[in-house]
């Protein structure tokens, strides 16, 4: 039986992208300095509670970033890493690129949230290049972020479109960083990665550890 068939026969309530983002936001403590990667992680900002004073950093040189401006108020000198217009909160600051990456590499960010193609049981991350022959490689700040923040969270769909688990024994895509991922937030489960062990701390409604294990060949999952 293929992994997809296993899933389609079970009444599993996969978490939506917004639910995943809300789940990540719940784990971000008040006062944390956070970098949200391009793509799926960007949505986390929409779920931070009003009483959570979270300081958002973007690698192009801004900290204390606020939400997108109202239509017509965009200023393209004030953008995020995705090159989209943002705003600045009171207390925010601008700085040059070497300082911005010193904030990452120097361990001054508490959490970064990144997307991924694959994550290995050892916490290796692959998220910058598929390695396909006609693909144009682009790395941006991914390698600096992955190894720089105190904690690196990954947000991704658990399975590829073809039904393969993205949590793998060893990454087959080119690596972004070694042993850097501490937690995975997916549509099926939240999993802690530490010392080569994969500990499932939450499962989507209707999903059992056994179901998830069946979808994840070569990786041993245990329940918290």
């Amino acid at each position: 039986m293929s992994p997809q068939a296993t899933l389609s026969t079970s009444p599993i309530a996969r978490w939506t992208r917004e639910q995943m983002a809300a789940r990540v936001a719940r784990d971000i403590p008040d006062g944390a300095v956070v970098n949200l990667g391009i793509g799926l992680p960007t949505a986390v900002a929409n779920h931070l509670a009003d009483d959570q004073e979270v300081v958002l950093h973007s690698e192009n040189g801004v900290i204390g970033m606020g939400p997108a401006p109202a239509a017509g108020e965009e200023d393209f000198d004030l953008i995020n890493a995705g090159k989209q217009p943002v705003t600045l909160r009171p207390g925010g600051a601008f700085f040059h690129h070497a300082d911005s990456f010193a904030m990452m590499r120097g361990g001054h960010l508490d959490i970064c949230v990144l997307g991924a193609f694959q994550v290995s049981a050892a916490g290796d991350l692959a998220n910058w290049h598929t390695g396909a022959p006609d693909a144009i490689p682009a790395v941006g700040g991914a390698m600096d972020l992955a190894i720089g923040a105190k904690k690196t969270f990954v947000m991704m769909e658990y399975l590829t479109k073809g039904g393969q688990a993205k949590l793998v024994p060893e990454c087959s895509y080119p690596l972004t960083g070694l042993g850097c991922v501490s937690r995975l937030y997916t549509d099926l489960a939240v999993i802690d990665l530490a010392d080569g062990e994969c500990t499932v701390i939450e499962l989507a409604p209707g999903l059992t550890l056994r179901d998830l294990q069946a979808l994840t060949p070569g990786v041993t999952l245990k329940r918290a």
Partner: protein
Amino acid sequence: MIDKIVSSPLDALADIRDGATVMIGGFGTAGQPNELIDALIETGARELVIVNNNAGNGDAGLARLLALKRVRKIVCSFPRQADSHHFDALYRAGEIELELVPQGNLAERIRAAGAGIGGFFTPTGYGTALAAGKETREIGGRMYVLESPIHADYALIKAETGDRWGNLTYRMTARNFGPVMAMAARITIATVHEVVELGALDPETIVTPGVFVQRVVPVERVATTAGGFKRAA
């Protein structure tokens, strides 16, 4: 008397030669010195090595320089964007050399050149394809990769306000690579939207001291346009 003000972008670039290494500021369109890139195109200089975070957006500025096949090699971190079609075509045709550098390593290699540092060990990229063949070292129980400085003949940057000594301020995230590129080039050319009298800039707010800048070119303010991402329909 020191007077670094130059009347036009073309005058500022008059001495550029084929084969020059040129740093161009900007992250996407923010901080991209369009007037200087247009002047660089006008000089006709060829076989250029360009250092920029990206590899051009749309059809203007850096993208046009690439499309005109003036660039032999580009050193950047993120060439692939929603509107990087000119770079994409040249790269796929094998008509441009790409040195892909993680963004923080790019910034620090540029800074190192400006600071007289001969190389530095960084944890970024260790164990990845972008560190292949580079010297590594274990320091304090962690693995690091040796990275080298990136020097340039010219840095073309966009600033906000300047004076005749070359002191500069910037505007929001348009600052990005400007300050470090200014340090790393033999000749740094900055556009500014306003030239003020010496002493008018608050010394506490000068971001790039004039010692790092050789030429200052006043240009009209033009609102920075969007670029680098797909607009929602």
